[in-house]
């Protein structure tokens, strides 16, 4: 003992730190990644690897250039890369993955101040940027098990496009993910496992996913509601994007409003918009509304006087 250390209370702490949370979310995404590899082949792993590596490299370079602390250690860049890969079709050219990672990490995340400060979800925004920039490559869906076919890659439409036609995919296949789509978004079962895991570990609240999926289900009540919620990026968006800490409201009330908003916007885009899929846009639009939702849904303070707002 040389000198006693003096520090403000509390003197003990919880051992769940930022990087633990990120690693848990990465673990929760592994079932979906495995499902993606099974349905779309090992190229899915290559795409994921490129996204993760380029996200981490961009994060490192960016922090260096901005003369800030290195934040690779919190694994948030790894998570962003993984989530981005989940949102890409397996046939995507690898250089596009790098551009997508640049958009996610540099433009959406670091330019706004890094982890926790971004106003929109990096992976979702990057997906939208890529969708607008490379519409052909981003909608080049393939059928599951296409890699087993002898012919060249057979491209196919997503179930949302096929809906109502004779090629409709069965609800069970949708749940298991046996349909065309992005690497990580088709298998609702795997995403559900990951989402429930996160809820059991109390890392995400069920409020936003339930509100999102529930709203969409109710709104599309007369047009195959089950198929609506199981197709496209609904489960991926609801469990992994609409629960992102930085870009969604903190309070439960806020999370429910956020989820309902996502459900409504997704429904509107799917039914009245020119894009077949609206999950990404709905989450981005609600991300932008988050600060306002937050202002309106502050917690009720125990024993506070009612006239608080008129003071000062």
């Amino acid at each position, binding site marked *: 003992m040389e000198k006693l250390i003096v520090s403000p209370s509390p003197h003990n*702490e919880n051992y769940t730190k930022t990087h633990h949370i990120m690693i848990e979310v990465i673990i929760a995404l592994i079932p979906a990644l495995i499902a993606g590899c099974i349905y779309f082949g090992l190229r899915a792993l290559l795409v994921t690897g490129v996204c993760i590596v380029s996200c981490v490299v961009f994060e490192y370079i960016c922090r260096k250039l901005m003369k800030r602390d290195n934040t690779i250690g919190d694994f948030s860049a790894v998570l962003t890369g993984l989530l981005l890969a989940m949102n890409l079709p397996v046939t995507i050219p690898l250089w596009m993955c790098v551009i997508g990672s640049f958009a996610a990490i540099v433009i959406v995340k670091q330019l706004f101040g890094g982890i926790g400060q971004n106003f929109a979800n990096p992976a979702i925004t990057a997906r939208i940027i890529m969708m607008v920039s490379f519409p052909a490559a981003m909608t080049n869906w393939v059928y599951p098990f296409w890699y087993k076919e002898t012919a060249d890659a057979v491209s196919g439409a997503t179930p949302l496009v096929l809906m109502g036609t004779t090629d409709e995919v069965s609800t069970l296949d949708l749940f298991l993910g046996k349909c065309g789509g992005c690497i990580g978004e088709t298998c609702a079962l795997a995403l559900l496992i990951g989402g429930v895991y996160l809820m059991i570990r109390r890392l995400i609240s069920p409020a936003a996913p339930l509100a999102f999926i529930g709203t969409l289900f109710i709104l599309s009540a007369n047009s195959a509601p089950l198929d609506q919620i199981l197709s496209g990026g609904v489960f991926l968006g609801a469990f992994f994007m609409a629960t992102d800490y*930085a870009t969604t409201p903190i309070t439960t009330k806020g999370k429910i409003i956020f989820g309902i908003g996502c459900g409504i916007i997704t429904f509107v885009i799917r039914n009245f918009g020119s894009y077949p899929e609206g999950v990404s846009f709905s989450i981005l639009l609600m991300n932008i509304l988050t600060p306002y939702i937050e202002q309106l849904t502050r917690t009720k*303070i125990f024993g506070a006087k009612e006239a608080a707002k008129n003071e000062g």
Partner: protein
Amino acid sequence: MSRINGIRLKHHKNTENCSTVEFPLPAKVRIPMSMHMGAPCQPLVKVKDTVKVGQKIGDTDAAFSVPVHSSVSGTVTAVTDYRTAMGSVCKMVEIETDGKQEISEEVKPPEITDKASFLKAVRESGACGLGGAGFPTHIKLAPKVEVDTLVLNGAECEPYITADYREMIECPEDIIGGVNMIKDILGIRRAKLAIEANKPEAIRNFKEMADNDDTIDIITLPSVYPQGAEKVIIFNSTGRIIKEGMLPSDAGVIVMNISTASFLYRYMKTGMPLVSRRLTVDGNAVKEPKNISAPIGTSFREILEYCKTDFDSLKKVIAGGPMMGMSVPDLDMPVVKTSNALLGINTYDDKKSSSCIRCGRCVRVCPLGLMPAEIERAYKIRNIDELRSLKVTLCINCGSCSYVCPANRRLAETNQLAKTLIPRK
């Protein structure tokens, strides 16, 4: 609001079965004149005076103050300035003990005829809240409005501390006696003994003792921190909400630590003022954790030595519990009336805080429903209006927000700093 937020902590109640040990008389004691909430007392003794146990050595006319008594018999060797753990300066009386522990003639049971004489006796006993805040008991017991419920705080929600628990196990009759005495004299109809569920033996004991008494309820509280905070325990035991700016008595409630109640009972019987107290000595640098009863003024160093502390590895000493206790800058600081625990810690990791990831944990755990993350943002840009509407002044500094923060942000500290920005009315 139906439920108050909180966190589940590891209890570390290692000393719950350690009976209280009398601390051997130290060679000297150093008694500060400020151990309570109000203005410090003025010393009544000079250097070379001889004093006896229980003799009054400091007093003042200031309203929120209680007198100070000598805990030993011996000779005053110095009256000096002393900086308390809170940073304020007061006088301190240093007494060299003579080993005889002669009891002063002043020590005799007070005569209680009515409420006024009772309150006067409470003040003379030197009693202040033994739970940690040091609020003068005679003021607490003289509410300006009518009070119908007395809540006895036996939550002891901080990890490690078992001092109140030992009181409940060792002197349950004194506690019940004190409760009945206060109830009768102040005309309070009901008493509620609120105890956390992690003390089943104490709960069972009291349930048996109060079986035939329908004016005393025994309430089992869930072991959730900060169960013992005043507003929390009032809500959880009576369902009443203490609104901003209200005192508990405005809602008809007085909250008192159980050890304070049993001390008052003993004082009324013996007349021995508050000159010693029980404290839990624990922590990972302490090899023999104990509950000890030490004379007020004993230095922390002697107590830690007595409990075989490894001084080489000692990094931090905490007076109080790990959540709200104060880290002590100097081992020669004395035991005061409010010391309920002394923890010797040999681990300290000065972790750098990283950016807030807005996970909302701090919001979910705040017992008062505050938003520490938002408060921190408003504090950074010195937005006083925003801080006001976020009600930062209600923060009780329980430390839950800092505890759960995955980014190691010092939210509780920021709340305290933010409070200072808001001018008092």
